[in-house]
């Protein structure tokens, strides 16, 4: 794509440095070019997908940059498809339950790691961090057999449990960074005033940790929503299939249609709310993603 060649040359980079330190200097023209290139790079594939989603029939294969006969038929058929709306419900339930569970259990652990003194913090943190890097395939294969044997194949709980494998450590890791930020003085004051550790936790720390909880919650939620391998391995029907798996197994609206038109429509539908979510919470998300990277 054109964007790759526009971005790569590092020769452009040092010149930008001039702009970075001195805000008073007028912005050089090439900076606007670079910015335009970045915007195109980020948004063009999305535009193309919308383009395809508005085409049906023979238009799909004509490769034009805009739909000659724009139609919402693909979107209609996606919404009429009860399987897709069910997939939205499944994704919502699995994501919310996993996030709530991960935050609840994880915040206790994170508080202890951030505030209390005890041996073994480093190994626990190392364990937590390394679990976030587990390859999902190592867990998916055994779980398929296990779930089939105990009968929770193709159920919500069957998906929530493996998603917790990644959601819980992730939540703990993010929350530890945030809890560490909270000034100790407030807790100290509460303790001096006669509160127990637990009361201090509940009444002082939790309210202050709300932003951190929100951040961890959003990142966890998006992560679970995005999860694909467990979804295709551990579910088989619309009863429990989440959105990524539903999209992957779309067979198309009519019998003759290439599925890609409807799949694009479904993809657009699922992306819009996520994009709004991300844009609304972008400060939190950025803070969460960089937690621990630069500080500490």
């Amino acid at each position: 794509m054109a964007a790759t060649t526009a971005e790569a040359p590092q020769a452009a980079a040092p010149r930008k440095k001039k702009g970075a330190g001195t805000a008073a200097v007028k912005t050089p023209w090439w900076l606007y070019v670079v910015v335009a290139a970045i915007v195109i790079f980020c948004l063009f594939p999305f535009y193309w997908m919308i383009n395809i989603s508005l085409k049906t029939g023979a238009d799909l294969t004509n490769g034009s940059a805009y739909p000659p006969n724009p139609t919402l038929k693909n979107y209609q058929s996606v919404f009429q498809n009860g399987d897709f709306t069910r997939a939205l419900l499944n994704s919502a339930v699995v994501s919310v339950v996993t996030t709530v569970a991960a935050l609840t259990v994880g915040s206790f652990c994170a508080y202890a790691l951030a505030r209390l003194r005890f041996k073994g913090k480093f190994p626990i943190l190392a364990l937590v961090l390394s679990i976030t890097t587990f390859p999902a395939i190592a867990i998916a294969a055994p779980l398929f057999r296990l779930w089939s044997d105990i009968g929770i194949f193709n159920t919500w709980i069957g998906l929530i449990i493996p998603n917790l494998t990644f959601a819980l450590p992730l939540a703990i890791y993010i929350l530890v960074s945030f809890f560490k930020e909270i000034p100790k003085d407030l807790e100290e004051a509460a303790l001096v005033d006669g509160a127990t550790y637990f009361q201090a936790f509940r009444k002082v720390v939790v309210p202050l940790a709300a932003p951190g909880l929100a951040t961890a919650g959003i990142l966890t939620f998006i992560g679970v929503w995005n999860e694909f391998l467990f979804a295709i391995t551990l579910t088989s029907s619309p009863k429990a299939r989440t959105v990524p798996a539903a999209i992957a197994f779309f067979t198309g609206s009519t019998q003759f249609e290439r599925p890609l038109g409807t799949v694009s429509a479904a993809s657009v539908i699922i992306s819009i709310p996520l994009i709004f979510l991300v844009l609304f919470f972008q400060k939190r998300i950025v803070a969460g993603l960089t937690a621990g990277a630069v500080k500490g």
Partner: protein
Amino acid sequence: MRGRFGFGAVLAALVCALFLAACGGDDDGGGGGGGAASSGGGGQEQTKGAKVIDPNSMNGAKGNVTYCTGKDTSGASHAWINAYNKKKTGVTVKIFEFPASADAQRQQFIQRQQAKSGECDVFSSDVIWTAEFASQKWLYDMTPYVAKRKSEFIQAPIQTVTYEGKQWGVPETTDAGFLYYNDEKIKSPPSTWQQVYQQAAQEGGIVYQGAAYEGLTCDFLELLFAAGGQVLNEDGSKAALNSPQSVKALQLMVDGIKNGAAPRAVTTYMEPESLAAWQTGKYAFMRNWPYAYALSQNDKGSKVKGKFQVTPQPSFEGGGKAGILGGHNSVISAFTDNPGAALAVVDYNTSLENNVRVGSKYSLAPVLNAAYDDAKVKKALPFSDELKQAVAQAKARPVSPVYPQISQAIYNNVNDALAGRQSPADAMKKANDAIDKALATF
């Protein structure tokens, strides 16, 4: 150091957890090695103990049945299901579609069977999966039901549902590959494959299914069998693919791509893509199943409407005529909770009324002899004689519980050769070795 000691404790705990997990782990079937049962329907060992269907269970059956099938590109499945539901027999059928490719359908079905899920009461199974599914005890033994109707069926499809002497499904449709030719460009059908490729190079080309999937195995075996080659030896115990005939057959396909008789993109084509290319009117030949006949005639935007004919596969120079027997069988999942209702549905799907419907309206080849005598079918399938001949000259693909691995060995290596990644001779040797490995699977 403090940290190291703590780390050790956590590590020890993890190891203990692993050990305990391992001890509590699943341990089905005793140890005992050996037992590599022979391929190709030998003995009764693998299917002993499978559930047997009671033909009377369909009388008075009620309930919901899910019919799982690949994407209904012809429209026939929706048609018969609507017709059946309208009869209000007390049994309601719901269709559940899998993606179009045969491999994807198999993956979807076996995932449910391995999970012991009764989601698919009835499955429209490709003929090549009978041995695998039966040996895994995933299907009902349908012998009592089929025995009553055996004489109604063409015999070749009946053989495709037979494994270890029992029938594991009921034939729905049969299939044999056709050579479609554009009669504005090709005045009379060529008599050998070599001529087909020669004429294709001059008159616009040939399209077929060349992607790395089951369809390519079909297309390749059609040439292989015509050239006189084999996949397995006589008793099915060893691979016999590494032969001069197989290299000749593959060389013909590879040369076809090299000299432009077939487009390079054919290595990614499955049935829908080759049909779409054919419908643009550019190509002189297409190899595809009979279902494409009605679509080539009736699809909006098909530029070959009224300009093509079909013929059974030509012979191979130095060999003979052959073809591949395809088709689908209705199988009943061993995990269904309503076998009686499932059987009622299968009974309708494979009835004469439905055979006539799929034959006359959707150009799918019926499996009942009587259907071919029906006037409507004769009119709609102007190629019914060719079809009967094609089925007669067709050979079955290797019957083996490890057929998927055998097919993979074939289609991966053939696809590599078509794409120019290896020579035909190397491809056949590698495929041969892979098949031997598959046959020796535990």
